């Protein structure tokens, strides 16, 4: 039987690469999102990150770094913290559009890996004497996920302006894909955990802002 596990460090490495893309000249950048929250790797936190505000583009100094417990993200090498009362510094000449771009790319890669695992798993699971992969409903579900991955990669590769709607589509498409895996989708160390981690990170950095 296929082991339904996604490598636990891949997404985390892409997350830190996304932070790096914002200000490549500054080592150890971590973009601080709304509310002072940030997702990064424990390693980057240990090394003492260079905080950059997503809202103002300024560097942030000092402040209290409070850990935010997140069991699922931790399994994928991702830590969450809240930076409280930092002092704004000089502008970081950051390119925040690249953060969105890289995070959407990382999320899309998680879905692509999940499609691969699902094809392998559903090819081994059987129903009525044949593999589940032979069922039209299953094939259609996988095709939808493949199209979503392809379309999103096309948007990212083509240099298009990526809107919050792209993230929304990845969330909904990811959930539809996970449904094909049944109970396995609810395991932390399965694709469901990886997809949820990408959803949580994306909600902070990629979700639409409403006017309150």
């Amino acid at each position, binding site marked *: *039987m296929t082991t339904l596990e996604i490598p636990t460090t891949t997404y985390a490495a892409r997350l830190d690469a996304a932070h790096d893309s914002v200000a490549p000249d500054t080592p150890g950048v971590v973009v601080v*999102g*709304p*509310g002072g*929250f940030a997702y990064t790797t424990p390693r980057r936190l240990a090394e003492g990150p260079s905080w950059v505000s997503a809202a103002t583009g300024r560097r942030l100094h000092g402040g209290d770094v409070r850990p*935010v417990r997140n069991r*699922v993200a931790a*399994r994928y090498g991702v830590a*969450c913290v*809240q930076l409280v009362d930092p002092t704004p510094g000089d502008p970081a000449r950051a390119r925040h559009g690249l953060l969105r771009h890289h995070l959407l790319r990382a999320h899309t890669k998680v879905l692509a890996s999940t499609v691969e695992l699902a094809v392998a798993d559903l090819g*081994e*699971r*059987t*129903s*009525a004497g044949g593999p589940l992969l032979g069922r039209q*409903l*299953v094939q259609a*579900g996988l095709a939808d996920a493949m199209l979503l991955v392809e379309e999103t990669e096309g948007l990212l590769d083509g240099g298009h302006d990526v809107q919050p709607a792209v993230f*929304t589509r990845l*969330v*909904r498409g990811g*959930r539809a894909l*996970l*449904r*094909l895996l*049944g*109970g*396995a*989708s*609810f*395991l*932390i*160390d399965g694709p*469901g*955990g990886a997809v*949820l981690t990408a959803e*949580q990170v994306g*909600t*902070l*950095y990629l*979700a*639409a*802002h*409403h*006017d*309150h």
Partner: protein
Amino acid sequence: MTTELPDHLRALDAHCVEIARELREPGMVLDEDPDAITRYLDLPAVRLQEAMLIPPRFAGETYRVGPHAFPGGSCLSRVVVMDRLAHGDPGVLLAAPGPSLAGAAVQALGSERQQSRFFERFTKEPTWTFFALTEHGKGSAAAELETRLVPAEHGYTLHGTKKYIGTGARAQTGVVFCRRAPGPLGIEAVLVDTPAPGFHGELLPILGLRGVRISELVFDGLAVDPDMVLGFDRRPSRRGFLGARQTLATYRPSLAAMSLGVADAVLDYARAARTTLSTVDEQRLGDLAGRVAVARRRVREVAVALDAGRPDRHGTSAVKLTATRLAEEATLLAVDLLGPTALLEHPWLNKTYRDVRAFEFMEGAGDVHRLTVFQGGLRDAGGGT
């Protein structure tokens, strides 16, 4: 068919709204410490959900609300209870001791002696149970399961692995579906007590509903006495496979009701947390609330039909599918309305966002229900049976 609740159920409904509030905090505690359920066994909600699943003749004490008595057994009462209590927290209900799905299987298939043996223990001590049908390779398709019941010198031995079994590693007793012979008539349901030699239960690391302690159960030669085969005195066509179908049909309306209670809770939470809403956002909340209300009416209709001995298989699949999707929709809408920090500044919403994803695969995955809905529509259109 009317779904207006009679007076006694309106009283039960109002009572459940009151006692559900006490579940919110335990729900958060269980998310951190799944074993903490033992601290909450005296909560009225915990006692009520258990009472709803115990046949009156085995109940030590009938649950009362004012002048009204609520013996277990009515599906309509149960959906009212599970709906409103889930507004407090579904995880506490599912983590609590009680007959759960196993009780429904024992009721559907068990002899009087088997039922006595199973249900009488609930009056003596808190008892957790499991319903072991699902296998990873087969899902909950009873006709295809591979766990084997093998003849032995003094009865049978059980061999195989069950996965995604609620309270499996905590339970003292449970029902295991297994194969004694090829084909659907070779399926049996056996009652087992744990711990026992040849039984191993292991917790699975799960995204939400942590108190439910979803488990993998391994049976490696567990001894099964012949009189622990449920319905052993019935014809093969009237036991194992039939029991699995009947049990799931009985319990699905409760799961649907629970999903709707959670959906309502999430919508209420979003409204409270977002004091000002744009017209469009008001409309989005209103639309979802309307869909929840329609689904609640349908769940109650399905429950009334079940109580009347006219189970509506297609309608049950429809409400299970609809209700579980509505709960998920509600969490996505709430997170959207509360913005980028929704999952970080609202721990209850974060927990519920994870919890509701379990409803999708509990008691039959969504796609299985979609196919059943289609078959029902086809039958109604005169195109199939």
